[in-house]
């Protein structure tokens, strides 16, 4: 994916996650997250897991916290639908959960199949008890991820940061 933004928000988010003492990252491959995925994969201080489906990351995140580490989960809005029942785990055990979700299907989307889940992303997360924080401008990214990380890891909340598709830029083909 090409972004229309010149600002390097993934590097800023990477530094923010490091400052929040994140030591594990789980991800489903995603163009919007590709730079952040690379930065975390290349960091020897962070254990990363590539997932076959998004809900795996909810469980790994719980296991990480059980063992004393902080995990961040990266996915696309389409993957949120896969997570619904698994979100029972952090809800019941009050496990911290930080998800960074890139939105599809809401701004200059070319693929109609992305649209239904984009409409359902925020309601689904909220129905399962997550707090959602939206970012639509790159300059708001660091502050929002900082706030989300504090809510998750310090206040034992389940938090999803929804990264707007307008910020990510139109997908080029």
């Amino acid at each position, binding site marked *: 994916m090409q972004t229309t933004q010149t600002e390097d928000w993934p590097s800023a988010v990477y530094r923010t996650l490091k400052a929040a003492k994140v030591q*594990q990252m789980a991800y489903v491959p995603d163009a919007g997250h590709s730079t952040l995925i690379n930065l975390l994969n290349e960091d020897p201080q962070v*254990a990363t897991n590539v997932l076959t489906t998004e809900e795996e990351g909810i469980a*790994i995140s719980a*296991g990480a916290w*059980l*063992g004393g580490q902080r995990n961040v989960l990266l996915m696309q809005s389409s993957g949120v639908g896969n997570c619904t029942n698994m979100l029972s785990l952090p809800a*019941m*055990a*009050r496990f911290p959960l930080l998800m960074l979700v890139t939105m599809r299907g809401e701004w200059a989307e070319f693929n109609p199949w992305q649209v239904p889940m984009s409409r359902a992303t925020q309601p689904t997360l909220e129905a399962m008890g997550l707090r959602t924080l939206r970012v639509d401008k790159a300059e708001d990214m660091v502050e929002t991820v900082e706030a989300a990380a504090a809510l998750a890891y310090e206040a034992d909340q389940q938090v999803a940061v929804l990264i707007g598709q307008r910020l990510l830029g139109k997908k080029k083909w």
Partner: protein
Amino acid sequence: MTETLSSTPATLDRREAIGALLRARENTLVVTGLGSPSYDVHALGDRDDNYYLWGAMGSAALVGLGLAQAQPEKRVLVVTGDGEQLMAFGSLATIAVARPRNLAIAVIDNHHYGETGMQMSHTGHGIDLAKVAAASGFAEARTLHSLEEVEQAGETLKTPAEGPRLYVLKVTAENHPRSLPSRDAVFIKNRFRAHLGFAAE
């Protein structure tokens, strides 16, 4: 109608088998999948270093992975059922790629969904989870039919492996009396973390 694949006989008693597996447990951290695996492990003795799941089907092996990565000096054992592991088929690929040296998964395989009316599972139709794990790249993946084999597998948990291990314990399809761990997931979580030295903040 497709031809039913041949399946290996299932003759172990599940509680005896899990008891044999846990005999050499020592300080191994244990995560249990929802349903009978949680009841079985609880029946063998409630411990602070047991993490029981009551739901979130499909999560057990992956909770084990996150835990194993966070605690590389400890051994982690996941005890789960064939139904849950079949649901989380992809987790075998995720765990194989992650290659933890301190994680073992014991699949208590009775070929059936015991919690929901004993419908036959895919393993009952011949799907071989040990072969799937081996093909995925697990360092060790074996199907166990005798208590001696299970005890030997329990002994191997003491030593690091080249990568994750998976043992399929072939048990008879019967439900033992339920031995119910606490359903308070926050309590179980905090007790487990306190065992590892993390204060409940």
